[in-house]
């Protein structure tokens, strides 16, 4: 039991648990599982400006999802508190690949070379956090969904738009992994 609560879960436990959020949200309130709509709701709540995209009743449409998102943050906190801190047990091949391009600290959930406040002052940290974050926001809104909304909720509903989007996710991710990251991490 403690093993299950404190360490990493195998894929065949984690995957089905993630999938169950789709029927859970449908049964509780006919809601479609998807996180990135919250970025739009937050813009609508904070700074809608005169943009049509943000002029809607965000409380009515998105309050449930913003509350869900607050829960995600709390859940991340609780799991990291009660779990034993441990390095992510990635394959030795990945350790070798990442070492080769300049990642040497494998102790955290994300590499300290890129994702600390101090690293934010470096060009590679800035690109990873600020440029990466910007593209996550822009891309999910343009595509109308993220990994949860398109890859899981959309594909499970057999939607062609979601298949196109997911192929795009991997095209962009592979391009960035092979063409951009080696220069961002190693060269800057």
């Amino acid at each position, binding site marked *: 039991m403690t093993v299950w609560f404190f360490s*990493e879960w195998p*894929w065949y*436990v984690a*995957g*089905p648990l*993630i*999938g169950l959020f789709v*029927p859970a949200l449908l*049964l*509780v*309130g006919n809601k*479609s599982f*998807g*996180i*990135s709509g*919250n970025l*739009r709701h937050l*813009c609508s709540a*904070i700074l809608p*400006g005169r*943009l049509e995209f943000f002029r809607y009743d965000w409380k009515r449409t998105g309050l449930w999802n913003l509350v869900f998102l607050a*829960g995600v943050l709390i*859940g*991340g*906190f609780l*799991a990291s508190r009660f*779990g034993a801190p441990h390095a*992510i047990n990635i394959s030795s091949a*990945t350790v070798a*690949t990442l070492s080769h391009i300049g990642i040497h600290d*494998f102790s955290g959930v*994300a590499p300290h070379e890129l*994702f600390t406040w101090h690293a934010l002052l470096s060009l590679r940290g800035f*690109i*990873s956090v*600020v440029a*990466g*974050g*910007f*593209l996550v*926001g*822009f*891309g*999910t*809104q*343009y595509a*109308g969904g993220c990994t*949860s909304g*398109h890859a*899981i909720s959309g*594909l*499970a509903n057999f*939607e062609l738009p*979601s298949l196109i989007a997911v192929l*795009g*996710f991997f095209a*962009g*991710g592979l391009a*960035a992994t092979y063409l951009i*990251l080696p220069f961002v991490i190693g060269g800057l």
Partner: protein
Amino acid sequence: MTETLLPEFDGCGSSGADQQIRPAFLLVYLLLGVAFGIVLTRSEVLSWFRIQEMFHFQSFRMYGIIGSAIATAAASRALIKAVGLNSVDGKPIATPRRPLGNGIQYAAGGTIFGVGWALTGACPGPLFALIGNGVSVMIVAVFSALAGTWAYGWLRPRLPH
């Protein structure tokens, strides 16, 4: 070129029934969110290292997680439909579908998000779970994502959809 009308846009998670929600239900959504945050952490899908392992095809793990999540969600949907279950408020389960249009928004937006996914090592859910995990610099990534969202809202009338 003829002017094309923008299809009615439903953001990720914004579709579905649109009625006022009772406070008791908000607590349920909060608890579901807490559970999702725990799953994201324990499954390690919020880890930049796991995302890199996936994009380098060096482990089956992430593919197994995403694949079995889709299979579980699809099977659950089919079961709900077969049994004819309603949601708790008694309404039939909605199955809204996104309009395809010419598909450009999905291909282009998806690719742009993919680049961001590889750079940050996180999609929107994990960004917030990572802040909970103590990777506090991701607060900056969230504000940057909001800036990207706003930029899309501003450019939207001029982008192909």
